[in-house]
């Protein structure tokens, strides 16, 4: 059982994440979901609260701490926060692992990196004539796959996807959904933030709903419907989160 539990004083957000599950995060735009994701990942400072991973407290003050704890984060703005557009696919995918793949004197094992990136490009069906293709020149779907590839390379266990299929064509969307399911089946724990209700309903094992910075409810996939989610998503007045 993989538990991720965080409470933040300002918004009092607490939830669990189980191994092998896709936890959907629903809510209106501005509900605070991205903020929660960034806080967990160490991208923004936390006022108070703890994160437990596998029962032990995880000290996450910056993204590098989160990555050491096998977390991965795909921001909703992949061009601005997910990729180095000026670099090629290989270096984008390898960004999470390059420090680990050096010889004893410090030279990067470029062949190994090329192999690993190549495998990931194939695994994710990233359409590109070569690994040296600049990220800027890829389509939205392929760019998103490169970002996913970066976390696959690191073999992150806990993945936070923020709007994973925004701005992506239908075909690539399908591939991403398939990929998410595969990852969950392999035992990864996934948080999926999405503003597309069909996506939430289709992919999530459980759904956490937020409104104005607070968690307003938690539904499992049998209870989750458009109505039940929307009701929780618009529930203001600072009600306490349901246990």
């Amino acid at each position, binding site marked *: 059982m993989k538990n991720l539990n965080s409470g933040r004083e300002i918004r009092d957000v607490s939830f669990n994440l189980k191994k092998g599950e896709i936890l959907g995060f629903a809510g209106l735009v501005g509900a605070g979901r991205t903020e929660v994701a960034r806080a967990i990942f160490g991208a923004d400072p936390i006022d108070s609260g703890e994160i437990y991973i596998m029962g032990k407290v995880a000290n996450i003050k*910056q993204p*590098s701490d989160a990555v050491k704890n096998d977390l991965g984060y795909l921001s909703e703005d992949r061009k601005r926060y997910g990729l*180095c557009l000026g670099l090629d696919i290989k*270096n984008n995918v390898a960004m999470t692992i390059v420090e680990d793949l050096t010889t004893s004197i*410090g030279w990067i094992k470029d062949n190994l990196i090329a192999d690993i990136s190549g495998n990931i490009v194939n695994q994710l069906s990233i359409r590109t*004539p070569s690994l040296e293709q600049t990220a800027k020149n890829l*389509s939205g779907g392929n760019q998103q796959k490169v970002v996913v590839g970066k976390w696959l390379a690191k073999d992150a266990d806990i993945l936070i996807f923020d709007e994973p299929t925004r701005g992506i064509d239908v075909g690539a969307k399908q591939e991403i959904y398939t990929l998410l399911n595969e990852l969950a089946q392999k035992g990864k724990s996934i948080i999926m933030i999405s503003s597309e209700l069909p996506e939430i309903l289709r992919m999530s094992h459980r759904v956490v709903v937020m409104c104005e910075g607070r968690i307003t409810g938690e539904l499992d996939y049998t209870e989750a419907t458009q109505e039940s989610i929307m009701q929780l998503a618009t529930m203001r007045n600072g009600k306490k989160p349901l246990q």
Partner: protein
Amino acid sequence: MENVKNGNNKEKKRRAETFQRLMAFGALIIMFIGFSLASPYFFTFNNVVGILIATAVNGLLALGVTFIIISGGIDLSVGTVMTLSSVMTAVVIKNLGLPVWLGVIAGVMTGSFAGFVNGILISKLKLPPFIATLGMLNVARGLSLVITGLSPIYFPLESGFSNITMGSITAQIIPGFEIPNGVLIMFGMALLAGLILTKTVIGRYTFALGSNEEAARLSGVNVDFWKTAIYTLSGFFVGVAGVIIAARLNSAQPALGQGYELDAIAAAVIGGISMSGGEGNMLGTIIGAFIISTLTNGLRILSVPQEWQIVVTGLIIISAVYLDIIRRRRKI
């Protein structure tokens, strides 16, 4: 269709990069040919050696600055930190009477430490690089004056210190073929810098930070640590430059240095390093440094007044950057 377009892009990118490198090198060759035709004194062994040795110091500074510019930063302090490094070398050798090699280490450590401080100011204290290094420029200059008491420190002739730059190993191997050591050191350092940039983690992260620092941070790169490391690394090359210039002049001149940073940055820019960061290579920087010293030397031989040399250098910087902008627009 996407594959065709992408295939063309890769070709275009390769061609554009090669074109840019060839262009800088080509400009250098054209200059050489031009000056040789204009004056018989230009293409002589002694004069070319003069160009080489004049490039050594600026080249070393430019190597350090290149790391910083590619990473998206700027360093205005390289000139005065170089001077401070030469001062510390002199203090250790002349005033403390310690062996030459300790003096060299002192100089290199001074440069590295100043770079480290810059890095801390910029990454931890979040000062903008321009401001932080401007402050360091003044601090280093002031310290040089304070430590030396405003006058130069001369190295004792017996120490053989000036041989570091002005001596010649090649002359001992091939009599008459006297390439000053300083030139060899510069080329060696350029090779080292190039290897670091392309084959090590710090080099990779230099490009990453320059391309998209926040994306790198969100990928788990410890940006504060590596930024500081990059500035420290740059400081290493600045420290070496300090030792080399001190050996060339056989003295530490505390009032020197300010203004050198501009030539270093100019060399990088002429060599094709983009000021917005994320791309560049050391070969371009070295070619850029040579272009500047070739220009200065050639114009001097043609008796062009020094004032005009400076004007021409400025024009070349502008043209180089403009050509780079055009090249970028043609690249998708």
